């Protein structure tokens, strides 16, 4: 029906404010979903391709004293495709840390991606991480000075590279995202290690044949070499960058559903309100159409088509937006990872789901709204509808009602009378507050994770990691005047199993764990570690373990291989350690030697102490608690642009919903407002009543929005928790305040436009238009 289409188009232009607002909400919902899903798809494709092409190691052994003979032995093991023995060590030069790594020459494992230049040859050349070079103004051909044990080595930069191992610039588990200005990856020829007197390898990387049984091959490799050289080992899935990559895909993907779902729901609500109003407004027209012989279904189709036109346009704009700003959104996260040749590609497959969802929602909402068309009897529709019968509301039973001004009573009664629009605004406000408090809360939760992990829980200032030594062995620096207190600890990588569930967990064994960690059990008391091991809540949850359960615990060298009782569950949210005492470990875990490989130190000058330790003990690795916290904070800050976009979108939603309903509200109540003005009410008095109505809606929406925001935050907690930390949903009181203030500012913007509209009402024409 061509003419019916014209009615639709012109009607939408008459309600331009509501039309554009709804269009915006649909466009944001679709655009947001398509961008996120496309980011995930293209990031996943390019990431997997990168890991594949540049051959990220499938298995890694870390240890000491590996040599060429080990390499030859491993090469003979069935199932091994390639072996890469290399040297890796960190060297600190003032505020910079260089990770010096053997460059793979013939082995095809962990191949660097060279942006420009070539592989280093000889002992005086290096490949440098492009991120470090860019951050420090270094170029191809420049020289990099590295000081090792007081000796300065000048390395010519022959190439700028990225590595599949460092898609995320992770120094270690504690520093998952290092500052590229302070942490650089340097790849050198093996000759360099000969010169500095370090001919042995400390890492062996493996790749396997496609048909190889990985676990059996790994066992064979361990038998082929002196397994005492192996300190720890890692599968590809546990490699830091790779695991962050996988976790990020999961986390980003989750966001594709939260916001668009809320936007989609609101789209349905607004379409419902607009169409209900249209049916009331068009009652007589509908009567005429029926009188002319149009079937109910044909009239309903006119309205449904109107919503479908709106939806189709919104989908189209959303897709255009996703194409235009997708790359921009991706670049916001550019500092988070380094994936060479990663290009955002708008994936048209991702268009289908949101497009269908929007079309279905708008059709259902529209159909639901206009089904009342069937009840209209054409003969009755020709006459003006009898005004709704006024009714006392329950508030009128209270004495205070009589003390209210006419303005207040009018505001309350209007709110009760226009229930559909009233609740639509309330729902819009709930959505806005929930999304705002969720967005702020997301930032708060990240902050809380850092605070809890490094400020509330950790009492130490430095951690010193060294090769395992007998407990009685003392370190000279422990006598330094900067040391206030210390605790020798053994951190052992173990595998804990509960039935089919298995998890790699570091076991912290110490005489007095709680002198360095403020860890509590779930009841808020000191955890029981006298009768078993204590597990962090997050790990216990993943493994479905409760206090009192028995789990099996083992190390790769089988030094520990037994069953143990979980004596308590702890409240740790970062640096997850299973806890045990030396006494328990020796008696029940059958740990033969009392030794330590870590010292937690309280210091009155941590930085100076760190420098002293690293200067005199190059084999020790020292981290400052505050630097670890800063590193984690840096990683969390990557989410800031994303969080600000979420807040922006929540604001857009708030303005769009309130503006759309305001437009409909004023159009529907034009007669009422004009009458009030004719009777002598000023536009200001009308807007005051309007504001009072909004305040009633805020009072209802605020608690519900906050509850929903908290629920959403709790819902994503698990997805954002990693092996490094557990994200606990937390919204700070200031965030509630910000959310409230932003909602109020949305309200002010919309009220300003409402005032303008009311001020411009045509008093003569308005009295002829009566809808309700």
């Amino acid at each position, binding site marked *: 029906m061509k003419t*019916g289409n*014209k009615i639709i188009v012109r009607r939408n232009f008459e309600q331009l404010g509501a039309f554009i607002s709804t269009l915006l909400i649909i466009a944001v919902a679709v655009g947001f979903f398509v961008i996120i899903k496309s980011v995930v798809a293209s990031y996943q494709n390019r990431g997997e391709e990168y890991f594949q092409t540049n051959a990220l190691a499938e298995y890694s052994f870390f240890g000491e004293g590996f040599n060429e003979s080990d390499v030859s032995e491993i090469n003979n093991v069935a199932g091994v495709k390639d072996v890469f023995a290399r040297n890796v060590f960190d060297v600190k030069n003032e505020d910079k840390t260089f990770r010096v790594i053997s460059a793979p020459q013939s082995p095809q494992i962990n191949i660097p991606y060279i942006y420009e230049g070539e592989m280093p040859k000889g002992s005086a050349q290096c490949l440098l991480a492009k991120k470090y070079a860019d951050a420090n103004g270094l170029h191809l051909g420049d020289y990099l000075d590295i000081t090792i044990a007081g000796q300065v080595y000048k390395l010519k930069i022959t190439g700028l590279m990225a590595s599949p191992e460092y898609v995320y610039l992770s120094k270690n588990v504690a520093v998952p995202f290092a500052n590229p200005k302070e942490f650089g990856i340097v790849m050198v020829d093996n000759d360099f290690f000969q010169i500095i007197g370090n001919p042995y390898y400390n890492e062996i990387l493996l790749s396997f044949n496609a048909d190889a049984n990985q676990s059996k091959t790994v066992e064979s490799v361990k038998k082929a070499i002196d397994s005492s050289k192996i300190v720890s080992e890692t599968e590809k899935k546990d490699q830091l960058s790779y695991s962050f990559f996988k976790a990020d895909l999961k986390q980003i993907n989750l966001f594709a559903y939260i916001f668009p779902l809320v936007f989609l729901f609101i789209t349905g609500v607004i379409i419902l309100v607009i169409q209900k109003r249209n049916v009331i407004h068009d009652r007589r027209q509908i009567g005429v159409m*029926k*009188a002319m012989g149009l079937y*109910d279904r044909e009239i309903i189709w006119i309205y449904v088509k109107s919503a479908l036109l709106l939806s189709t346009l919104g989908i189209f704009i959303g897709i255009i937006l996703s194409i235009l700003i997708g790359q921009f959104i991706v670049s916001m996260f550019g500092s988070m990872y380094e994936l060479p040749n990663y290009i955002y590609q708008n994936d048209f497959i991702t268009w289908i789901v949101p497009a269908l969802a929007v079309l279905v929602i708008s059709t259902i909402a529209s159909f639901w709204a206009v089904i009342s068309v*069937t009840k209209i009897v*054409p003969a009755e529709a*020709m006459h003006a509808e009898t005004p709704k019968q006024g009714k006392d509301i329950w508030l009128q039973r209270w004495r205070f009602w009589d003390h209210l001004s006419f303005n207040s009573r009018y505001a309350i009664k209007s709110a009760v009378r226009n229930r559909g629009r009233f609740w639509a605004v309330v729902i819009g406000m709930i959505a806005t507050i929930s999304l705002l408090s969720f967005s702020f809360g997301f930032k708060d939760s990240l902050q809380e994770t850092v605070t809890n992990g490094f400020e509330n829980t950790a009492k130490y200032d430095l951690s010193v990691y060294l090769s395992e030594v007998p407990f009685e062995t003392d370190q000279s620096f422990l006598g330094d005047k900067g040391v206030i207190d210390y605790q020798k600890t053994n951190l052992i990588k173990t595998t804990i199993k509960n039935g089919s569930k298995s998890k790699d967990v570091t076991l912290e064994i110490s005489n007095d764990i709680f002198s360095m960690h403020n860890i509590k059990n779930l009841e808020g008391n000191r955890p029981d570690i006298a009768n078993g091991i204590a597990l962090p809540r997050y790990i216990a949850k993943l493994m479905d373990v409760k206090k009192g359960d028995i789990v099996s615990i083992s190390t790769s060298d089988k030094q520990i291989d037994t069953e143990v009782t979980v004596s308590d569950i702890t409240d740790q949210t970062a640096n997850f350690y299973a806890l045990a005492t030396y006494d328990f470990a020796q008696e029940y875990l059958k740990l033969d030697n009392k030794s330590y490989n870590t010292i937690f130190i309280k210091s009155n000058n941590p930085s100076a102490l760190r420098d002293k330790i690293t200067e005199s003990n190059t084999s020790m690795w020292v981290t400052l608690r505050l630097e670890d916290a800063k590193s984690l904070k840096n990683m969390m800050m990557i989410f800031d642009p994303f969080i600000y976009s979420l807040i922006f979108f929540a604001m857009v939603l708030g303005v769009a919903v309130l503006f759309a309903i305001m437009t409909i509200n004023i159009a529907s109540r034009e007669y009422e407002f004009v009458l009030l003005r004719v009777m002598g009410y000023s536009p200001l008095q009308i807007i005051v009543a309007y504001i009072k109505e909004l305040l009633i809606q805020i009072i209802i929406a605020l608690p519900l929005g906050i509850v929903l925001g908290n629920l959403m935050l709790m819902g994503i907690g698990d997805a954002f928790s990693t092996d490094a930390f557990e994200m606990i949903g937390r919204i700070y009181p200031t965030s509630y305040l910000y959310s409230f203030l932003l909602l109020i500012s949305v309200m002010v913007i919309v009220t300003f436009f409402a005032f303008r509209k009311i001020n411009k009402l045509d008093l003569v024409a308005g009295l002829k238009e009566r809808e309700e």
Partner: protein
Amino acid sequence: MFLYKINNLTKTYGEKEAKVVALNDINLEIPSGKFIVILGASGSGKSTLLNIMGGMDKPTSGEVFFNDQSISKYNKGELTKYRKSNIGFVFQSYNLLPDLTALENVEFSTEIAKLPRIKAEEALGLVGLDKRQRHYPSEMSGGEQQRVSIARTLAKNPKVLLCDEPTGALDYKTGIKVLELLHNVHEDGLTSVIVITHNQDIAKIADMVIKMRSGEIIDINENKKPLKPSEVKW
């Protein structure tokens, strides 16, 4: 064969104390091809009768036959089809679709009709509005709007034209023009016309006048010498 045959037609609204009898046991036979006027004061039930004859409302009891077919038992779909195929309405308040131009209002009707008699432009030409095709209802006078309404109805090729106070909102001169138009439609043999009005002078142009009061028919007169619309004065 009668155009309409009405047996014991009653229509009530409301219940108990609020019950209003709009039509009370009406019996009526309306011949085909005539210009009929149903005359009555406000509240006499004439509009209710017209609405039931036009299939816009259903009787409480009794039967209405259109061309020997009972329309009283029609369901909603059948009534719609009946209106679409047989009836043209002209309302006192014109009831044009405000979002459509004059031409589009007529086109809307021809699109519904499937088998329109004439094109929308021709229909507007018949009512003398070929130069106002692109105007919206809000840009036209009441008389012009009513003429568009008649054009809309004519284009649809109805078997009967039901007109509810077609001059009620118009001044005398414009009213006469509209009546002339309706008269010409009838004279040209295009369709039967039934006009309801409270204006006794308009009844003078009818072939048959049916008088109503309080929901009952009080008189039916055949007009031997109907006047031309231009001869009527009020």
